[in-house]
């Protein structure tokens, strides 16, 4: 067993090196991001402060200070009060807490309005809410992945939801919902607005989402560690905790805090606050899309006419199963993704694309490229070149197969 552990350790160094010297191109930043040096440093520091933040003695006080420091940094990044920050284990827990916490606060007869393109942590909480006697309605999206404010207002009027949950930016297509406009409609009709801003954080000006009543964010999408996130809960919003057993996070989330992870979150937030090169990112993304559009027939870019976060391209390559392209690119050292990974690692068609009206076949032909820190113009050019070559090669083989039938 020792032998195997040793092998793995060597592998890990090699993996880091591949990313740094760019024999591996990472284009899956919406899935997760590499840890920033600042986040690593922040966590290394926190490892020396192992006290329980709830203890009143010195070791506890030091840890609590670290926690509060991170709380301020995260709050500053979004532009909310530190008191609003409820640290969680990540975006999924924040989403679950927003929905379940609101449902439990209202009790029987809870009404929730959401969309069919939300993250699975929203989607999979809905049956539980229904089981508790809640009612759910969906706001449809058009084939571009966008909602209609007119339709929203009609449903707000007729359905009178206690909670509206609509994401800031879609993780698969990058399409942005108009949260400020949605918020004013919600306030007009007395509904609480929750927004999953996990993909917006660090990629969008906070004014796009900071004013919602409940906001979910996550550390590992902004070069922080996995296992740390937060639900931002504005003053006056009624929420019942879903984790019990302590008065941590002002009783909104019981359990000893993940101090190391939260320290990494705080450090990552401070770095993003100083610099977040979204302009350059958008330039690279747009360049990538132009290269593909010029180089290939039979492709469509999802949500291209909608406002999108600057780093995401979701592209359908007609008649090419995404897993084939994914595999071919991975063999070239290029990491991209498609659909949602099942527990087996096989790919199921994305519920987001199905929600936008795609057929199963169409949805299985879509690949997501999401860019980040290490993506430069020459990076996207290299990826575009490889994608074009693979698509042409696979299509040529397919037409050969067709003609020999």
């Amino acid at each position: 067993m020792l032998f195997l552990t040793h092998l793995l350790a060597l592998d890990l160094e090699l993996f880091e090196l591949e990313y740094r010297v760019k024999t591996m191109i990472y284009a899956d930043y919406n899935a997760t991001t590499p840890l920033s040096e600042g986040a690593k440093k922040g966590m290394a520091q926190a490892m020396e402060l192992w006290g329980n933040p709830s203890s009143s003695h010195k070791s506890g006080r030091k840890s609590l200070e670290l926690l509060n420091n991170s709380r301020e940094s995260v709050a500053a990044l979004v532009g909310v009060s530190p008191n609003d920050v409820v640290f969680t284990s990540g975006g999924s827990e924040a989403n679950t807490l927003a929905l379940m916490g609101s449902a439990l606060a209202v009790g029987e007869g809870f009404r929730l309005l959401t969309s069919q393109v939300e993250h699975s942590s929203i989607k999979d909480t809905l049956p539980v809410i229904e089981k508790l006697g809640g009612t759910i309605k969906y706001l449809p999206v058009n084939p571009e992945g966008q909602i209609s404010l007119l339709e929203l207002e009609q449903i707000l009027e007729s359905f009178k939801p206690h909670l509206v949950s609509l994401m800031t930016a879609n993780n698969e297509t990058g399409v942005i919902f108009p949260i400020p406009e949605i918020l004013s409609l919600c306030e007009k009709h007395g509904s609480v607005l929750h927004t999953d801003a996990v993909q917006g954080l660090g990629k969008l000006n906070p004014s796009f989402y900071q004013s919602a009543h409940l906001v979910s964010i996550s550390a590992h999408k902004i070069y922080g560690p996995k296992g740390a996130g937060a639900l931002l809960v504005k003053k006056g919003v009624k929420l019942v905790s879903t984790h019990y057993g302590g008065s941590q996070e002002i009783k909104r989330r019981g359990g000893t805090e993940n101090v190391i992870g939260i320290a990494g979150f705080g450090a990552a937030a401070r770095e993003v606050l100083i610099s977040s090169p979204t302009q350059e990112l958008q330039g690279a993304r747009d360049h990538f899309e132009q290269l593909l559009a010029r180089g290939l027939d039979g492709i469509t870019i999802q949500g291209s006419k909608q406002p999108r976060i600057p780093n995401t391209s979701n592209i359908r390559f007609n008649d090419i199963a995404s897993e084939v392209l994914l595999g071919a690119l991975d063999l070239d050292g290029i990491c991209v993704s498609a659909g949602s990974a099942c527990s087996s690692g096989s790919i199921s068609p994305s519920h987001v694309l199905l929600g936008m009206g795609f057929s199963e076949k169409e949805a299985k032909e879509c690949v997501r490229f999401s860019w980040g820190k290490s993506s430069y113009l020459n990076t996207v050019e290299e990826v575009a070149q490889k994608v074009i070559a693979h698509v042409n090669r696979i299509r040529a083989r397919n037409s050969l197969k067709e003609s020999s039938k």
Partner: protein
Amino acid sequence: MNPLIQNQLPKKGAKVVVAMSGGVDSSVAAGWLSKNGYNVIGISLQLHDMAEKIDNEFGTCCSLSDLNDARRVAEVLDIPFYVNNMETAFNEAVIDDFVQEYLNGRTPNPCVRCNEKVKFKKLMDWALDLGADFLATGHYATIQYNSKANRHELHKGGDDGKDQSYFLFTLKEDELAKTLFPVGSFEKPVVRALAQEYGLRVANKPDSQEICFVQGKSYKEFIEEKVPPEVLRPGNFVNAEGTIIGQHAGLHQYTVGQRKGLQLNSLEPLYVLALDATKNEVVVGPESALFRKSAIVKNISWINEMDLGSTTRALAKIRYRSKESPVNITLLGDNSIEVKFEVPQRAITPGQAMVFYDGTRTLGGGWIESLSVH
């Protein structure tokens, strides 16, 4: 020794996609190729809800232990690994057919069908799309290039007790040219030793004994879960003269040659001789009546082109675990043949594959349709 047997060993560095099931054979196939200088990629097909399901309040999810074994073997070998979900194709081509065959009073062989309709078809396609030169599997069979005839031939595996050429009879020579069976000429203990040597966690994993999708239950239970109860009607046991001698509990519970579970009163032991789906009858009789000399075989598939004259001599296997026996094959047209055995065979069973050999060479085979009147 060159375990690929092929007189033309692929060039080092050739790109080979290995179909990995998580078992020791395909794991060692991947290991051998990667240790011998090939550019190896592991792929697995998810064919059904693998392994046991975990049912809980939050829904059902599969534990996928076999896929996980394959994945971890790939990681130890440091090769890329991908999974493709083929549940829909597998359900339609294999499971539905398996159930239907039982309802038709036949005894299917889903593994051959899976190789034909799902595995080799989809895997080869996927491998070539990934830019691979070869597809490799962990089967115990060998591929030989016959330079005189300029063709690739399928031969038996090196381990007599493990030979799996029977399951591969639907392959064609052009597919064989792009296929490798890296462990095909090894004996099982050698394969396990190699797994140890490569440090693979599956070295001591037991061989799979059952059909993958019915693990842990009987075929009867599996079929009863799949079809509405009214389809599985009780009917009559009859003897060879057509006299009713009892009641059976549904055709799907019987196979030719079966003795156990008939619950019939008789002085001599009775065996299932045939299943008649149109009359919903199970024909029973003495063991001696099970021995028959000829059968009609349909949907014949030859690996290499076959020149069938008026009659052709070959060796035939009537099921995976039976011994080969000499036969004369007569072409009937419509892709069917009549097969006459020199020695009577016990329990030739409609629905099973009959596979033909010339020495170690696998000629091809087909599906047993019925016992002919001769």
